């Protein structure tokens, strides 16, 4: 293939990738895909790709020299590619354009069920507990807002990881809390149909390694409110830590459950 045409093809491939990265960053959709630390890299990467693609495109016909040894019989080609450039273009563009066309910036429940949505709570989670605010009784009032109805605002992750810490369980058992997350039907131990599962996603790097952080919502004798599956809700109630199915569960006895606005991102930045 004509080397100038190859440069143009490669430039267009790189510029397409740049456009995708910059669009997702600029539109704010990137918050659904990456943890905060990684997001600026998408901007830098997109800009870098744009510069690279434009540079090569605009200089496609210019003379260049690598400035080092070219012995006779050695074509010494710095631009010889592993495969046909049009094949490379197809392999690089088809998947990304397919993904851009089909993404809804979230996983389905089927995929989330593979990401711990319906797993038992962790029995030992000292790692993440390190990142949580201190939960001595004396500090709770300082670190958690109290609503007018008398419920303390807790991040769902705090409640979830309490299942692995007996000391925190002692403090929080019977405590009135308010939290938010997405509500889905509980699959196990729910013959009466009065239980739901409340979850959020914890993203360490990217959505592919996201992990659902769920707790159980028990509506008791009340009829659970009619809320669309997977809708964001704000729930207040009393937290308990019974042992069910051989594991300590975090169960919120719901006093109030109302639909709420989705947070601007998944990775637990709100309330911090």
């Amino acid at each position, binding site marked *: 293939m004509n080397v100038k045409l190859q440069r143009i093809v490669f430039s267009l491939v790189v510029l397409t990738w740049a456009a995708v990265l910059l669009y997702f960053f600029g539109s704010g959709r990137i918050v659904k895909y990456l943890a905060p630390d990684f997001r600026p890299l998408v901007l830098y990467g997109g800009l870098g790709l744009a510069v690279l693609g434009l*540079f090569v495109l605009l200089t496609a016909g210019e003379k260049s*020299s*690598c400035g*080092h040894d*070219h012995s006779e019989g050695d074509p010494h080609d710095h631009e010889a590619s592993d495969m046909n450039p049009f094949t490379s273009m197809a392999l690089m563009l088809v998947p*990304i354009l397919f*993904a851009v066309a089909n993404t809804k910036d979230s996983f389905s429940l089927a995929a989330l069920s593979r990401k711990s949505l319906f797993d038992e709570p962790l029995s030992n989670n*000292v790692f993440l507990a390190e990142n949580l605010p201190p939960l001595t009784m004396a500090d709770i009032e300082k670190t958690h807002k109290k609503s007018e109805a008398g419920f303390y605002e807790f991040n769902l992750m705090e409640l979830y990881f309490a299942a692995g810490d007996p000391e925190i369980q002692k403090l929080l058992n019977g405590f009135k809390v308010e939290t938010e997350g997405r509500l889905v039907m509980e699959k196990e131990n729910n013959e009466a149909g009065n239980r739901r599962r409340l979850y959020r996603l914890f993203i360490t790097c990217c959505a*592919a390694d996201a992990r659902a952080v769920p707790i159980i919502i028990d509506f008791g004798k009340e009829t659970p409110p009619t809320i669309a599956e997977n809708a964001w809700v704000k729930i207040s109630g009393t937290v308990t830590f019974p042992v069910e199915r051989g594991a300590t569960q975090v169960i919120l006895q719901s006093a109030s459950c109302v639909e709420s606005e989705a947070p601007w991102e998944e990775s637990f930045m709100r309330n911090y």
Partner: protein
Amino acid sequence: MNARRSLTRMTGEARQDFAFAFLSILFEGAPFILLGTLISGFIDIYMPPGMMDRFLPKNKFLAVLMAGLLGAVFPVCECAVVPVIRRLVKKGLPVSCALTYMLAAPIVNPITALSTWKAFTGPVMMIYGETVQANLVMTVSRMGLGFLVAVLLGWVVASIPMVWVLRKRLVDELKNDMPDHKAGEHGHACCGDDHSGQHSYKHVESSHTCCEHDHSHEHIHAHKPDGSQRIVAAMRSAIKDFVDVGVYFSIGIAITALFNTGIAPGAAWLDSIANRQILAPSALMVLAFILSLCSTSDAFIAATLDKFTYGAKLAFLVLGPMLDLKLLFLYQTVLRKKFILWMAVGLFITILLGAYYFQWFLNQQIVP
């Protein structure tokens, strides 16, 4: 097979899951690929042949040892390291050193050490009757096992012919690049002139004082190119490398996304293996292979896998940066498929044995 999970008939829900996982991994990895290929492109044009070689000891066993530590100075993740070593091999770095650097650098580097340290902060272990922080044990063990495995592989590679290891095309390029010198023996900077091809004349039967022997070779000399011409060449080399690597990266993350979201056949099978304690290290190694996580952040995933032993987590943390689905495709830009297969088997067995020994040792020490 469930239609939703069928590769041939992906439902809208499955397409949504695949697309979301695919893009998230692409966004995470693409900037690192770009960084690696830019470095690679500029190395291609600006680094004289054999330069890296001069920094390493002459003794090949010591050189491999040193190469295993280079990541501490040049921290590179596994996505970025492949295009870099591809270029370094072309520039005369011995293949054994290049592969050692490629395997060790994503693990033996300060960023990975810091993330591992942070991820395992909290739990304590009893070692020889003393209380030791788990993060210290895991960080040191990860870097130690990673270094050891990389160096072992480097020593093996040092004793086999290059043509068994590198792609035929790369071997041919190396032969063309250095027709009268052994690859990596020395460069041509000694001639005191740039050799580029515009205005040419030949050295015949010339003697180079730098290497103190005669070369009956022919060079084509030229005037030094101006800076802008070299930048153009470097950028063209970089974009070519980006596309070469990007193709394999795209295929790798597409497959990863299919497994990650349970669309690919066998995803449920993997889940069932992960619950078996005896097979736990193997199961987590398979998981690491499929998830294709970045070495700078995989410790945060491993630390939350509380059903698994520390030995299994160590296997996950050492194998992942050395071998995963995405790397399998990236390695094909440099290595022969047959060698990749043998390397994969060797890495799997060595790391598994290391993880078993580590867990056995901990079982003798840990007081519940």
